[in-house]
């Protein structure tokens, strides 16, 4: 199993600003994933972050809006850039151990 922490746990930001979310895993993992979840909705995959290469983004998500860093095998960051109220959501990171995915507690973002 893996234990994942995220910072911050929540934030309220003004439109037009950027927020960087940090994700730390307690063990080395190859793949890390970033998801977005609107309240009461399912999880939508934003991108896959593989250490040593550029992140792979899903349809509808672009690097300029959601730049991702993966500097080592235990850490990743997701930046939400030039925020608008539509970016208000819960952002979760996850890692894969074997075939199981383990999730962080999430970052609740509110954009005003």
């Amino acid at each position, binding site marked *: 199993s893996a234990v994942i922490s995220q910072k911050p746990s929540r934030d309220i930001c003004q439109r037009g600003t950027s927020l960087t979310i940090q994700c730390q895993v307690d063990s080395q993992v190859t793949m890390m994933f970033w998801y977005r979840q609107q309240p009461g909705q*399912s999880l939508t995959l934003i991108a896959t972050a593989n250490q040593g290469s550029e992140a792979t983004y899903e349809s509808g998500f672009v690097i300029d809006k959601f730049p991702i860093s993966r500097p080592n095998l235990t850490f990743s960051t997701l930046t939400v850039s030039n925020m608008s109220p539509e970016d208000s959501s819960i952002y979760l990171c996850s890692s894969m151990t074997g*075939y199981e995915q383990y*999730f962080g*507690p999430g970052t609740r973002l509110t954009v005003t």
Partner: protein
Amino acid sequence: GQQVMQIPQYQHVQEGEDFTTYCNSSTTLSNIQWYKQRPGGHPVFLIQLVKSGEVKKQKRLTFQFGEAKKNSSLHITATQTTDVGTYFCAPQGGATNKLIFGTGTLLAVQP
């Protein structure tokens, strides 16, 4: 792209009643996972199904993978209040083994 629908969206049961959620895909799946998300929590892995027609049990939970590998179900026998949460099916695939989460079923259990 791949779509994974779950029905029902919401189910309210009395404690002790059974519950079933169904997961349907528009494409054939290589495998499927199930996750549970408690209110205010994050998804937690329950199980993975790989083989056509596979059935797996975990105490009161029974998971099934369809013969055509396009659908799956989760059945809970004699629900308890601890079963409350949203249940997601999630096919896994692609070069990165990414998960595509289904729409989810929210289970409410009345004591």
